């Protein structure tokens, strides 16, 4: 087992394992870095709703492609369906929170559960009517790296690189809008477009992550590395960078672990590792960590 783990960590465990490991690491890098801004702008719950809202789109895209006589499981089609349905969820969420008296978190919860429920119904119908060959669709819920192809890894690599470039070029407006949106507007920043870009980048992370960690867990890969990184630095650029590195490490090690322990599913392994990084940071980080707080309290006699 240890041998397999070491081989996997150094990309020596075969071509497919290397693809999975690389894909998961790049996904973690992009999701961690984008997620730092998503979290600071307080869009964590919204991104979770967006992720769950992809499910009906995946089911409907499968049906459409199967009905047209194609392969219902073609990834580009499924991703397009997922994106459309997440966008619809966002638009409805916007309408619910601006046109009704529902508080935003309640509206978000309503959209999340309604879309997810609709998605499960559609998947069940697909399985019962026996259209196409639906095997594997449920893999989008929690991720399923078993059948990951070269094209999938390439998609994650390209998408991730694009996202990181976009993030680097928008970092100032994103940071200023997250810290003080009113001042950002005074400085000539179009905060609505900036927020929209952030949501689109978050959605892109969700889509890239469907194969690896799945739509239920992707939110954890967006926010947990950011929370861990925040404990180590007080500068947003460094927080985003560290979050990306923590996400990449969790992705890579998680993929290697699940190869070494075949009963351990990849997506959950990645999420648990990211959470472990957060726990370690909460204990050990200088300044904000529990240990250094205890030491400071101890050093102050009489407290």
């Amino acid at each position, binding site marked *: 087992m240890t041998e397999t783990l070491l081989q996997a960590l150094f990309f020596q465990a075969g071509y497919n394992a290397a693809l999975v490991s690389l894909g998961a690491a790049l996904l973690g890098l992009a999701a961690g870095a984008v997620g730092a801004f998503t979290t600071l702008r307080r869009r964590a719950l919204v991104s979770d709703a967006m992720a769950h809202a992809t499910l009906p789109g995946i089911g409907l895209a499968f049906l459409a492609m199967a009905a047209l006589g194609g392969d219902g499981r073609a990834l580009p089609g499924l991703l397009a369906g997922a994106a459309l349905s997440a966008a619809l969820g966002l638009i409805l969420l916007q309408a619910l929170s601006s046109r009704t008296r529902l508080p935003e978190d309640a509206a978000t919860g309503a959209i999340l559960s309604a879309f997810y429920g609709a998605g499960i119904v559609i998947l069940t119908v697909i399985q019962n009517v026996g259209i196409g060959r639906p095997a594997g669709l449920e893999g989008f819920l929690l991720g399923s790296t078993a059948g990951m192809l070269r094209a999938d890894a390439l998609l994650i690599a390209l998408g991730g690189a694009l996202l990181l470039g976009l993030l680097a070029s928008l970092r100032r407006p994103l940071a200023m809008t997250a810290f003080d949106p009113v001042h950002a507007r005074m*400085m000539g920043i179009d905060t609505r477009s900036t927020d929209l870009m952030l949501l689109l980048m978050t959605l892109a992370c969700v889509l890239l992550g469907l194969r690896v960690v799945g739509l239920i867990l992707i939110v954890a890969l967006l926010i947990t590395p950011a929370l861990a990184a925040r404990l180590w630095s007080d500068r947003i650029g460094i927080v985003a960078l560290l979050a990306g590195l923590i996400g990449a490490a969790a992705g890579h090690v998680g993929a290697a672990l699940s190869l070494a322990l075949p009963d351990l599913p990849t997506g959950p392994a990645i999420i648990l590792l990211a959470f472990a990084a957060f726990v370690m940071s909460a204990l050990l980080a200088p300044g904000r960590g529990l240990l250094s707080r205890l030491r400071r309290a101890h050093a102050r006699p009489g407290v």
Partner: protein
Amino acid sequence: MAPADSATPLPEIALALSGLSVAYGGMPVVEAATARFPAGSMTAIIGPNGAGKSTLLKAALGLVPALAGEVRAFGQPVARALPRIAYVPQRAAVDWDFPARVIDVVQMGLYRQTGPLGRLTPDLRARAEQSLADLGMADFAQRQIGALSGGQQQRVFLARALAQQGDLIVLDEPFAGVDAATEAAIIAVLHGLRARGRTVIAVHHDLSTVPAYFDRVLLLNRRVIAEGPTSTTFHRDRVAEAYGNQLLTAIPA
């Protein structure tokens, strides 16, 4: 209203509101406010809680939508004059646990110079550092903003506005919950700005300091009650009028 082609060399008007009305959810908050703020003046906006002071300023700057009215800054529509205006929001309006150092926040005031990608040139860095030094905060540049006292946070906000080098500085309750040293530092900076011809407008609460700090007042209680030089406008009956209405409506009939 003076005709636009008037050739009289009147003092330039930094900010002019005419008939500005704002409502939140159907409730009028500011009604038909008309006011002029001459360049080089320092005006206190005073009035009871809920009088619409903050809203008036936000609507004037286009930060909340107005129902009606027109706002011009330096003779231009306010949207076009924004590069000349620095706004200092209430300290409580932001999350101070945000991962930023003091100098990072001040440098946000340089965005019009740097844009999203431009480099912070040595000149711009020096400008940010000088703004901090003007408020006695030079030693705090590398501190995390959450580790500051309320007064220090207020000074950082003002330093960010100074870095913008605006001709009009609009402040929303700059003295709320700050210590005496901060209040003195802020007022010294604001008076220095006025001496250099800049225009200052501030929402202010402490009536006892109005004559010492401000040369003009605007008394507001949804409507403009009075507006003018402190010496002629800041009188007991006028202030009572601005505050009294609120007291009356607070008593159940």
